[in-house]
């Protein structure tokens, strides 16, 4: 599960961290990926390895569909649009009983099968390696991306959209691609999630999940690829460690986030460019180097 979080937070990082577009409905793309595989598998017996790219592509398609109108609005407005989209998707899955089983969800999704090893079982170990491989692949892809013209264009848009457009960057197209790419990664994660759980319900994809992923991105450091992975590790494992204080869990969690924002607003690992922006400010306040 932590690995899936890592995938999601890396995917969201493309949009939030690199391009600086706040997306509050990221769980929707995760949901679309999960339901795509679930439906393909249950209705057509589609195997996991074919479902994986298809789930990604379907999710990416919806990324483009929702991105096209919404990336024309900025900042707070974009946040609200994506928030609305996230809720619409969840509610749609909840109410399209005929296809999605409504609130009961879809059951009996097939687990992945490896040709040399046989089907995956309840045992989580093979999933761990599967997700690990996907995380490594995604990280590699994102590192390559950040070194490319596309990656530079994304950062330029975050820094100054107007100047970026005057440098010949088609801001709408670049933002749209970022949206699509980010949705693709969420779709992949969704597919793995569905195959592991063997059941998908709309409850798994609520607003809290979107916020949790966003918190991972921010905690790890916006625009930092390893930061996203680390953020997912911390926020994925922390609730388990705090299990003893079950009723206070969210309280402690919230407190940590606040401390984090005060003492290390650039995230644990920070971002090479954001760090520079925040550094002088920190010096003024004295050495505030606690990472909470």
């Amino acid at each position, binding site marked *: 599960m932590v690995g899936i979080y890592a995938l999601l937070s890396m995917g969201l990082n493309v949009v939030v961290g690199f391009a600086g577009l706040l997306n509050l409905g990221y769980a929707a793309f995760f949901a679309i990926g999960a339901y795509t595989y679930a439906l393909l598998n249950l209705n057509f017996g589609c195997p996991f390895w074919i479902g994986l790219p298809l789930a990604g592509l379907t999710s990416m398609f919806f990324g483009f569909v929702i991105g096209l109108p919404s990336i024309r609005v900025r900042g707070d407005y974009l946040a609200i649009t994506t928030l609305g989209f996230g809720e619409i998707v969840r509610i749609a899955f909840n109410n399209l009983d005929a296809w999605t089983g409504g609130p009961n969800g879809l059951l009996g999704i097939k687990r992945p099968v490896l040709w040399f090893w046989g089907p995956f079982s309840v045992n989580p170990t093979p999933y761990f390696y599967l997700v690990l491989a996907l995380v490594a692949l995604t990280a590699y892809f994102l590192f390559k991306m950040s070194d*490319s013209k596309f990656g530079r264009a994304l950062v330029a848009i975050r820094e100054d959209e107007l100047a970026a457009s005057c440098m010949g960057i088609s801001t709408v197209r670049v933002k749209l691609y970022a949206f699509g790419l980010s949705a693709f990664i969420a779709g992949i994660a969704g597919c793995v999630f569905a195959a592991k759980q063997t059941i998908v319900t709309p409850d798994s994809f609520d607003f809290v999940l979107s916020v949790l992923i966003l918190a991972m991105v921010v905690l790890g450091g916006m625009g930092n690829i390893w930061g996203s992975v680390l953020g997912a590790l911390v926020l994925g494992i922390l609730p388990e460690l705090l299990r003893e204080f079950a009723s206070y869990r969210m309280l402690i969690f919230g407190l940590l986030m606040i401390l984090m924002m005060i003492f290390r607003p650039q995230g644990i690992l920070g971002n090479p460019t954001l760090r520079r922006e925040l550094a002088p400010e920190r010096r003024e306040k004295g050495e505030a180097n606690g990472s909470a």
Partner: protein
Amino acid sequence: MALLEVRSLSKSFGGVTALKGISLSVGEAEIVGLIGPNGAGKTSFFNCVTGLLRADSGEIHFQNGKRRLNGLGPNRILEEGIARTFQNLRVFKNMTLLENVAIGFHTRIASGLWDALLRTRRHRVEEKMVFTRGLELLRFVGLGAYANEIAGNLSYGSQKRLEIARALATDPKLLLLDEPVAGMNPVEKDEIIGLVRRIRERKIAILIIEHDMRVIMPLSERIVVMDEGAKIAEGAPREIRSDPRVIQAYLGAE
């Protein structure tokens, strides 16, 4: 015909008319000065030409009338070969100088995401080109020594020069400079004058907005004077200096 030919361009914001049918042309590798009191509409004119604002009426033609620029977005206009700098700096402050210039090369490299992913030959060659040519441009504007510094840490004057380097990276035919020497000391101003002349030697035409007469007069071959959105005079610097309408617009009428 000329490189840039603007005919009776108009633009109004609500009740305020920023441009009243202004016409202006810039020839190949020519330096044209655009002056006028504050609020005369000089920057609005730039914004219309570079596609940041959509003109209400009028024609903008480029390359001897071969290309019509009306209604194109800023990124398309840049691809056509018009680059600009901004009155208030708009460098990417948190990036290094070299990264700033690299963004200028955006439209001049063909390799996309897939090339980067597969590390194709084209990608490697182009990335190398971006950084060697980027460094070259930084040296050209006199910032070669600071290539890996963060742009935001540079002095105001250096950031202005960085903006020029970034604009040059886009390989323009026409460069629009919006008050390039504002807030600079006399030494820095002289450097900019030299720089603009060297840019022209690269066969790039320059349209320059500037208030400082000691800069614009020796630099421009032709000067256009604007007031309240309209052109009130045009001619060689010497004629402009003695034009009664210009004096009136700047100093107020009796």
